[in-house]
């Protein structure tokens, strides 16, 4: 049967059409977006040619938020409405934040555990601030690529926990971005480095950014990037160096600790300038204006700065040691040590890393751009632009996942550095006669006591049939997907009562909250929501149709009887008809019907490709 070809002006349904997919590095200090064009990965610039977007958002009354350099410039004069380093707050609770930070904001008191910055434009959560940054990158990409994005790979620190990953995904959703994958930053860097330098063997990625530190050990083998171990600190980076230098400045200049936030921003800014200047010179002059207008002048030598930041650098070395141990290797097994992240420009960092690994640290790749470039390469593969590519990323979970048991102890179900996706089940029982409900606390971390780990979510299993203590059998299953996100299912085995949750972390936003934000955001208010939904469904339908047509063409005859084929064709033209209509719901339904009709076919295809891989032959090898 001849399949209907639907084309709108400016669009084509040609098979293997190049999909617009990007990689986004959502950094603490700077963010970037990159894509692969004609086989070449490039960072995309804005209309003025800037490749880097400072991760700073300024909120003002009744106008859209400013993002980037303009906002950054306004930080010293409008400190409370200008949010910098928002990544440090993403996926964290107010309790985490109360711990002393050099820079502070006004947080609103709300019922939610999610912190909300109080600004003149109202309250904004870290997810919304991040979404505002992502929106700018999305628009930049769409403007420079000339079309709607199929999706994006967004990078996260490898050491991000479940709550922080979930928050990143929520931010992307809020920004109208389809997330193809959350990719760990050091893994992205390894991809870019590995492909560029055609590296093979064991490499270490030491990634010290503005607010996060990761170290990953990978084995590179013919396009397979296998993470052996990862470790880090998701609240350690260049910002912390700036803060200790700023603290020293205050002490030297006799500036009161109770200074206002505008003064603190200026000090941080100055600290950063000194740190950067000391990359190339041994000494730098300082001149600081105090609140009363008087000026303090002095200098900072590199040795002095090294002394100030040494403790912070030391904090990156223990994770390196732990990663080596978890990977089961010694420094002798390592081929290359690759430096990533702006903070690795600090000479002292390089010195200490080289000292620990006993080999030169490679600084021959752009530490700012490499993560975005790696993400773009992965996005290109995931979007299906390179059907024959052999690149494969095998990543791990950075922190152990467990459940609270009696006495506040943690029972670990999945250990850190296990390759993902992974699932693990464990049985528990009731401890009281007639107990009909059970509450489960999901935690993440390495410590033995619940209070020392991150509480991710609490959920309950109800309607357990009353039995004597110890008779019920409750099986809890943890599943971690390729994004490193956890879902949990609990089932009482004797009765079949089950309850499953997507782990919406205690520190995350409720589903309803994200919806509400979508409705509230200035951007979407001007959008016609209906039109947007219709467009989304049409794009989705197109994707489904294309994928199916390609599959049918390849092996439809082999796996389908005439009758089965007819049913699929029917459902397919049903979808094609719906797609031309104006009702998003009926397109959605038609997609569901088509996918349901194809279930058996899909399963057959997958099973046979696995059989092929197992036997090392292609099914077609056996055909006459």
């Amino acid at each position, binding site marked *: 049967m001849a399949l209907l070809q639907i084309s709108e002006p400016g669009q084509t349904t040609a098979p293997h059409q190049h*999909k617009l997919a990007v990689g986004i590095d959502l950094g603490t200090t700077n963010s970037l977006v990159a894509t692969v064009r004609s086989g070449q990965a490039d960072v995309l610039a804005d209309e003025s040619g800037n490749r880097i977007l400072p991760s700073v958002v300024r909120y003002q009354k009744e106008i859209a938020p400013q993002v980037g350099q303009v906002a950054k410039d306004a930080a010293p004069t409008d400190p409370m409405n200008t949010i910098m380093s928002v990544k440090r707050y993403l996926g964290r609770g107010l309790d985490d934040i109360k711990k002393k930070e050099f820079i502070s904001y006004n947080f609103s008191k709300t019922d939610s555990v999610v912190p909300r910055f109080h600004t003149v434009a109202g309250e904004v959560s870290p997810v919304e601030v991040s979404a505002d940054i992502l929106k700018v990158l999305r628009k930049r990409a769409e403007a420079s690529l000339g079309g709607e994005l*199929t*999706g994006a790979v967004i990078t996260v620190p490898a050491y991000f926990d479940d709550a922080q990953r979930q928050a990143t995904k929520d931010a992307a959703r809020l920004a109208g971005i389809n997330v*193809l*994958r959350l990719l760990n930053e050091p893994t992205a860097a390894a991809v870019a480095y590995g492909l560029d330098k055609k590296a093979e063997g064991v490499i270490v990625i030491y990634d010290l950014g503005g607010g996060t530190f990761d170290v990953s050990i990978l084995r590179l*083998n013919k396009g*397979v990037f296998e993470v052996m171990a990862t470790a880090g600190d998701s609240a350690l980076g260049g910002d912390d160096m700036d803060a200790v230098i700023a603290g020293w400045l205050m002490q030297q200049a006799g500036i009161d600790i109770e200074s206002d936030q505008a003064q603190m921003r200026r000090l941080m800014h100055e600290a950063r300038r000194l740190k950067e200047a000391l990359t190339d010179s041994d000494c730098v002059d300082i001149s600081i204006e105090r609140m009363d207008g008087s000026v303090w002048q002095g200098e900072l030598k590199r040795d002095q700065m090294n002394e100030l930041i040494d403790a912070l650098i030391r904090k990156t070395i*223990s994770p390196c*040691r*732990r990663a080596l*141990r978890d990977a089961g290797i010694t420094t002798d097994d390592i081929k290359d040590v690759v430096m990533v992240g702006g903070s690795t420009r600090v000479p002292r960092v390089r010195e200490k890393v080289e000292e620990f690994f006993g080999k030169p640290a490679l600084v021959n790749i752009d530490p700012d751009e490499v993560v975005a470039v790696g993400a773009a390469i*992965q996005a290109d*593969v*995931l*979007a*299906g632009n390179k059907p024959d590519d*052999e690149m*494969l*990323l*095998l990543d791990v979970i950075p922190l152990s996942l467990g459940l609270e048991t009696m006495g506040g102890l943690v029972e670990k179900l999945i250990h850190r550095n*296990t*390759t*993902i*996706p*992974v*699932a693990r089940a464990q049985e528990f029982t009731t401890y009281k006669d007639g107990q009909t409900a059970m509450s489960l606390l999901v935690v993440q971390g390495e410590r033995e006591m619940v209070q020392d780990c991150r509480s991710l979510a609490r959920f309950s299993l109800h309607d357990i049939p009353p039995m004597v203590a110890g008779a019920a059998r409750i099986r809890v299953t943890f*599943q971690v*997907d*390729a994004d490193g996100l956890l879902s949990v299912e609990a089932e009482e085995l004797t009765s079949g009562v089950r309850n499953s949750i997507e782990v919406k972390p205690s520190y995350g936003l409720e589903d309803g909250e994200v919806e509400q934000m979508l409705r509230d955001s200035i951007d979407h208010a001007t959008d016609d929501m209906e039109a947007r939904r219709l467009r989304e469904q049409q794009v989705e339908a197109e*994707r*489904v149709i294309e*994928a199916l047509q390609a599959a049918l063409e390849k092996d439809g005859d082999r796996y389908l009887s005439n009758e089965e084929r007819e049913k699929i064709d029917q459902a397919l033209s049903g979808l094609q008809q719906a797609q031309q209509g104006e009702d998003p719901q009926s397109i959605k339904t038609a997609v569901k019907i088509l*996918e349901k009709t*194809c*279930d058996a076919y*899909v*399963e057959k295809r*997958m*099973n046979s*490709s*696995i*059989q*092929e*891989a*197992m*036997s*090392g032959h292609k099914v077609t090898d056996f055909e006459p």
Partner: protein
Amino acid sequence: MSFDLSSDYFSLFGLPVSYSIDGEVLTQKYRELQQVVHPDRFANASEKERRLSLQYTTYLNEAIRVLKDPLTRARYLLELKGIKWDDEQSTLSDPVFLMQQMELRESLSEVREQSDPFAAVADIIAKVTAIIRSNTLELEALLQSDNQDDWMVAKNQVRKMQFLNKMISEAEALEAELEDS
């Protein structure tokens, strides 16, 4: 899970059901299978395909994890032979082994008081590693046997290895603490 592909982890990788395995073949086959089933191959596919891919990859990762580690491999092999594990109830009744364990535990708890705690902990790790190595060799012989009695001995051996492995991880955790302090 509708994974009707194979009856056991070994055949999944085209390996004979045996304690000694060819690590090269295992890794190579694992990568080939991942190329086919990994979620990255289905990022843009239907929901059904994505779900199947997640299930298959999860299964594959579990399979290689079990086969790669000599201890879990032995456990799994004994399970295939019909041996049941009732970890909670059974206790080890090997006085020589228990005594050895107590001594090792004692020296582990005294590491911090030693003049060179690093050397002390390294010494313990070396000792336990040596015991594990000789146990692995014994296990290999026992698991090749067709005799049920040998399997029961193997079962005990596996349980001893679990203790030893736990001790290694405790010693390593202590070593990490020493290094970081």
